[in-house]
């Protein structure tokens, strides 16, 4: 029964909503284009930086890199990572309504016919994982497409020029090469954890309120560099692969998120097993 529910969710929650992924593709390409022109601008003052090819890692880091730590000091420059937050909030919003809308409408028939509330929740967790995975897969595809068009180098190492764009002091960074592979995987895992938290909250609160909770976690994570705020693990620029000053430990990030996912999976099962299924208005 679980497989049937999952197939249903893949068909209705992903395949029939492919336009969302189409928009995501355009968003990622746009980010790549902006980076490309920023690089050309920097190249006017520092032509030596243009000698080095842009890498796939640069394109991805520019989109999901986030920002360096926020330090509350006079004259300290800090730019809120709008693109990073936007990229996460797009997928968080895209997956916001499907489970609860489905539960109030057609999905109610599906749930009753399946006869299994637990299978419904587990199927939704899997659907969410596939949705988040597909979103970041699209990001990778768009970077590869853009990379092919601009002659990028196909590795996940990060170039020096990009860290300059991100306003980093190069002397305070970890030893190069700065590789994005692990921080990127952690970023995806954190986003899944946040979306799972949002889906769980949607069983208790209105979906829009749970979306605001996700947004709040992101904003606080940007402002306070603490391992307790899991949004920090979704900021590759704060991980040990890039910086040396109190970095976010990637291993710890995976452990924290995995534990949180397990807790939310169980809480969701607990809730769905006792939950009244009413209409949206109720």
């Amino acid at each position, binding site marked *: 029964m679980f497989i049937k529910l999952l197939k249903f969710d893949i068909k209705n929650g992903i395949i029939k909503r492919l336009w969302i992924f189409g928009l995501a593709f355009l968003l990622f390409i746009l980010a790549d284009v902006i980076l490309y022109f920023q690089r050309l601008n920097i190249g006017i003052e520092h032509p030596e930086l243009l000698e080095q090819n842009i890498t796939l890692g640069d394109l991805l880091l520019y989109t999901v890199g986030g920002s360096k730590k926020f330090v509350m000091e006079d004259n300290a420059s800090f730019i809120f990572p709008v693109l990073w937050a936007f990229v996460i909030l797009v997928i968080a919003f895209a997956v916001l309504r499907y489970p609860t809308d489905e539960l109030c*409408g*057609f999905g109610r028939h599906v*749930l*009753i016919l*399946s006869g*299994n509330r637990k299978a419904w929740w587990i199927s939704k967790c899997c659907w969410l994982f596939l949705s988040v995975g597909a979103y970041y897969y699209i990001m990778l595809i768009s970077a590869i497409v853009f990379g092919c068009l601009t002659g990028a180098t196909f590795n996940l190492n990060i170039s020096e020029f990009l860290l300059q764009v991100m306003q980093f002091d190069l002397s305070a960074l970890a030893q190069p090469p700065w590789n994005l592979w692990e921080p990127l995987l952690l970023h995806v895992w954190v986003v899944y954890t946040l979306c799972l938290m949002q889906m769980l909250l949607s069983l208790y609160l209105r979906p829009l309120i749970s979306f605001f909770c996700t947004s709040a976690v992101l904003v606080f994570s940007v402002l306070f560099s603490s391992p307790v705020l899991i949004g920090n693990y979704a900021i590759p620029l704060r991980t040990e692969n890039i910086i040396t000053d109190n970095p976010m430990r990637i291993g710890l990030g995976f452990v924290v998120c995995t534990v949180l996912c397990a807790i939310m999976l169980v809480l969701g099962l607990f809730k769905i097993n006792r939950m009244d299924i009413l209409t949206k208005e*109720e």
Partner: protein
Amino acid sequence: MKIELNHVTKTISRRLVIDDISLTLEGGKIWGIKGINGSGKTMLMRVISGLIKPDSGSVIIDGKVLWKDISFPESIGILIEAPAFLDGLTGLQNLQTLASIKNKISDDQIKQAILDVGLNPNLSKKYKAYSLGMKQRLGIAAALMEKPEIILLDEPTNALDVDGVELIKKLTRRERDRGALVVVSCHDEAIITELSDEIIYLSEGKVVKTMDRSEDDEKTVV
């Protein structure tokens, strides 16, 4: 098929919507539920279908306790509130999607269920373009197509014309005659009186009266 409700109580948003209801419903009969808006008709159907959990009391379906032994009745067709289907699919595609979950019935049987409610199974029109009456008919087809043992129809005659109402009467009787337990709620007194074998009167979440129409035996619940 037998449904037993034992002292079922439910409060939603601090409002008592089901107040200590005890009932025994048996298969092979049409059970009509009568009551004004807000009397608890829909909530009672939701309790039986497993959509809402009673705060106290139990619902036993053929010896299996709902919320304990089973999450939902094992063989049930429901139409509660407005029918809800996928807008981008045709009526047939919607029912095929639902039927694929249990894989119990063939395409021909699905088409027959659509024909039974007076719709054309080969209609290429998407569900979103259906009229209210067509949506209602499709909702009834969905509830009946797998020939379930329990059928819950909440206001099945909504948005239907005179012919549609007659069709619903015919279908519910057909289902009753094959042994199904049919529960129908309707605000139209004439329809429910004509259709039901037994009538349950609800008021403020309580059963105030039951009536066996075959014997015209009226019982007032104190």
